[in-house]
């Protein structure tokens, strides 16, 4: 049969009917609109009886299309489409005419509202005439997750998913997992030892049957879509065979290059060229720093294979593994392919480079250090075994000035945001300092003290009141060296006086920044990032752990500054999303996807293959397809939409000059019908 459209005009109590004559709208619609065979009004369409009315009438009247004139589609489109399904009508034959938010509530004049409502309903009945049945797109799910980043966020998420019974692939670009949390001394507000809580988790992750770990590895590329991502992982040449190596330490003990700044210790200590980043590293197996190793330098200079260099072979000679040594100088990067169904991005942050603050002597004076450096100084496993010594001469500093908001909240340094953790960690630093240097004095320059967290305010107050840190409200204008002292010039805005402190050490509470390569990385994943290059969540309130790409989730500081509990919570949330996703064999997706024209031979497709659509597609959802003759020769190359990747924006359709690609649910005929029904003439 032809189209039979039912129109249901909702009173919404009096929300609509007070300013729109709903009876008249129904009447006019029935009288004038082609294809409309049934109209009615109802007090509350969204109520159970309202939905029942819809379901009953679809059946009784044999409706092939439905328009609900009611509130915004954002409210109840889903409700009514589901009701239609129950009556056997394809839900994509149901359209909503928004006569509440965009009519009755904004136009108090009843004749005006009635006229506009009638128009809005007509536009929708015309669209419904062109609606096509759409089937939800079923996507197969690969039950395996990828976690990018092996810090606390990644480890937490990995453990949660692995415990949930699914395989996890973890990729960490450093030689060990652990991330920033492994570097911390104690954690606020409890002052428990960071490594003491972190290391067991690292071990657990390493030993978990469901977790495969790739350290010293990076993501080469990610293609595919929700449920079916194809991931290429670059395993960077470690020069050490992880299977053979026992981590016996023989090699790094003999390494002659001993003056390389340790990244883990924030440059406060040195390491060798073959090294493990820190004693508790996982895997506890070394890597050769090819930049600094003299053998590799020599090989590069002579343009020979590393193994052919004879400059220094101390580590390989020292390696007790036989007959094949665990060290392989000629090892090359390896690309491995994995298929996963979901991805959690937990790539963390980096600390703002201190050099940015020349006026504070950052990067210039050894004794002006960053928060992370202080963490290493205060750490029992750090370069000073937890003793607070200043880097320049190892003296115990008696006056330490902590400067907060270094970078943070300072648009001129590129960080207009608050790094959220610094107030707390500075308070912690003052305490740690006072615990270790009892006679020392801590000054803190701050703008505001932000301690919004359970036990945070109390913790901060303790630093001031019990531990005697002097908090000065104001900015530091300059730090300069005078003898072996650092003169800190600042303002105390509360007293309105200029403050000059002769300090032994200055600690900058440097901002948390997005990783340097965050932008390129986001593009690799087709996820959005914000102005500060932190990855964007899908919705700031309601979808805080989803990225803008389906199947990719965010955890931890890659999404924005966070402290540990928040990071762990978000990691858990992301993991639970992934677990939900991996719980079914197939996923159903909204079928609002683009479609490239296909026809019978000899036309095949009106697409001419200029691939503008491919170039504008934000999701790389357009592929090229060769249409071949029986003999295998290519007749034409045309575009094809990968339904799994397509998110239904319609960019391709608007870009296509011949309109050979259209968006289901918003196809050309539907849009044309709507415009046509505006009917001003």
């Amino acid at each position, binding site marked *: *049969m*032809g*189209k*039979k459209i039912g129109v249901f005009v909702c009173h919404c109590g009096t929300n609509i009917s007070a300013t729109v004559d709903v009876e008249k709208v129904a009447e006019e619609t029935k009288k004038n609109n082609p*294809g409309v*065979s049934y109209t009615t009004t109802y007090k509350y369409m969204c109520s159970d009886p309202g939905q029942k009315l819809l379901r009953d009438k679809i059946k009784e009247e044999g409706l092939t299309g439905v328009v609900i004139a009611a509130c915004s589609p954002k409210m109840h489109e889903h409700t009514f489409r589901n009701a239609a399904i129950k009556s056997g009508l394809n839900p994509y034959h149901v359209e909503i005419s928004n006569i509440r938010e965009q009519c009755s509530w904004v136009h108090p004049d009843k004749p005006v509202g009635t006229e506009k409502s009638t128009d809005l309903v007509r536009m929708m009945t015309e669209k419904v*005439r062109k609606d096509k049945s759409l089937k939800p797109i079923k996507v197969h799910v690969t039950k395996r997750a990828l976690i990018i980043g092996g810090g606390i966020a990644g480890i937490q998420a990995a453990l949660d998913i692995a415990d949930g019974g699914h395989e996890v692939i973890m990729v960490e670009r450093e030689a060990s997992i652990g991330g920033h949390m492994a570097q911390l001394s104690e954690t606020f507000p409890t002052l428990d030892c960071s490594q003491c809580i972190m290391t067991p988790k690292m071990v657990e992750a390493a030993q978990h049957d469901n977790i495969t770990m790739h350290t010293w590895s990076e993501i080469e590329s990610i293609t595919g879509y929700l449920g079916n991502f194809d991931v290429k992982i670059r395993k960077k040449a470690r020069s050490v065979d992880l299977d053979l190596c026992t981590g016996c330490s023989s090699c790094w003990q003999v390494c002659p290059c001993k003056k390389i700044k340790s990244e883990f210790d924030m440059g406060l200590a040195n390491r060798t060229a073959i090294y493990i980043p820190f004693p508790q590293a996982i895997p506890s197996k070394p890597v050769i720093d090819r930049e600094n190793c003299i053998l590799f330098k020599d090989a590069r200079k002579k343009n020979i294979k590393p193994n052919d260099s004879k400059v220094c072979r101390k580590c390989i000679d020292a390696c007790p593994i036989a007959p094949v040594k665990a060290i392989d100088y000629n090892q090359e990067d390896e690309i491995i392919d994995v298929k996963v169904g979901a991805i959690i991005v937990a790539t963390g942050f980096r600390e703002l480079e201190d050099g940015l603050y020349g006026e504070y002597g950052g990067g210039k004076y050894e004794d002006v250090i960053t928060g992370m450096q202080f963490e290493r100084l205060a750490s029992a496993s750090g370069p000073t075994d937890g003793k607070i010594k200043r880097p320049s001469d190892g003296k115990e500093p008696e006056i330490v000035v902590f400067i907060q908001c270094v970078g943070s909240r300072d648009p001129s340094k590129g960080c207009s945001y608050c790094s959220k953790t610094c107030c707390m960690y500075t308070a912690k630093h003052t305490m740690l300092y006072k615990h270790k240097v009892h006679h020392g004095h801590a000054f803190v320059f701050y703008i505001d003290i932000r301690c919004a967290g359970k036990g945070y305010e109390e913790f901060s107050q303790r630093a001031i009141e019990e531990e005697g840190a002097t908090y000065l409200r104001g900015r530091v204008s300059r730090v300069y060296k005078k003898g072996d002292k650092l003169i800190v010039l600042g303002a105390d805005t509360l007293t309105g006086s200029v403050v000059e402190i002769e300090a032994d050490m200055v600690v900058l509470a440097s901002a948390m920044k997005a990783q340097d390569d965050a932008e390129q990385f986001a593009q690799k994943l087709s996820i959005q990032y914000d102005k500060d290059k932190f990855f964007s969540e899908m919705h700031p309130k309601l979808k805080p752990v989803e990225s803008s790409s389906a199947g990719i989730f965010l955890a931890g500081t890659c999404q924005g500054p966070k402290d540990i509990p928040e990071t762990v919570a978000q990691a858990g949330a992301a993991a639970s999303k992934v677990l939900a996703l991996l719980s079914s064999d197939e996923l159903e997706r909204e079928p609002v996807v683009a479609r490239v024209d296909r026809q019978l031979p000899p036309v095949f497709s009106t697409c001419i293959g200029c691939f503008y659509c491919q170039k504008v597609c934000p999701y790389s959802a357009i592929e090229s397809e060769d249409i071949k003759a029986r003999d295998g020769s290519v007749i034409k190359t045309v575009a094809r939409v990968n339904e799994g990747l397509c998110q239904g924006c319609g960019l391709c359709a608007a870009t296509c000059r011949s309109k050979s690609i259209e968006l289901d649910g918003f196809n050309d005929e539907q849009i044309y019908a709507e415009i046509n029904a505006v009917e001003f003439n």
Partner: protein
Amino acid sequence: MENIYKPYLMNISDIIDEAPGVRTFRLNFLNEDEGKNFQFQAGQFALYSVFGYGESTFCIASSPTRKDYIECTFRQTGRVTNALSELNVGDTIGFRGPYGNVFPIEEWEGKNLVFVAGGIALPPLRSVIWNCLDLRDKYKNITIVYGAKTVEDLVYKHELKEWNARDDVNLVTTVDPGGETPDWAGKVGFVPTVVEETAPDSNDTIAILCGPPIMIKFTLPVLEKLGFKQEKVYTTLESRMKCGLGKCGRCNIGCTYICKDGPVFTAEEISKMPDEF
């Protein structure tokens, strides 16, 4: 002066879904006088229009012996047929016709008839089949060979049943291999093969053939093999048409205008046309 492009207005009085995308309309003249004066013969076609979408050409599928209405069967393929399929009983369409020549059924009197149709090409023959069946006494044996891709694609399923039940019609239905259902009682195979198996003696027999080009191409040699002379084989051609009146200039094959000189041709006539179908 009369406007030759002005259509009759017709009311859709019934709609039958025949097969996926294929639908039959029963049409009645809105103006009863026009209806009374209207006459056509089997084989003729018309232009059906949905106002706002344009005109589309297809045959009249009902028999001239049934005078109260006109029926047409169409498949949804283009702008107009898609618009037609949105219509309901009670809606109005335009109808321009009848146009073209006719099947010479008087000449066929006293002869055996074999109708061969494939897929959506049964409608063009339905008119003439019913016409002959309604004048059943005038013809000898009547055989109908009808094939489609799948069982679902067969059109006029009720009438096929009716013809099958009649003992004065020999109906052979077939579907392409793979198109059969478990309870399919007809044949499985392509039309040309089935024709070869089931066609009656060519002696004193007229063959009327309609189907997609590929079917025609392979059936004609079969008929020839069976001894059918070219002038005893009739078919009806279709083409893109706009006016139906021999003016718009696109339906010609050589100097033959399908809309005026056709659509009914014998295989002999077709063999003389240039190869530009």
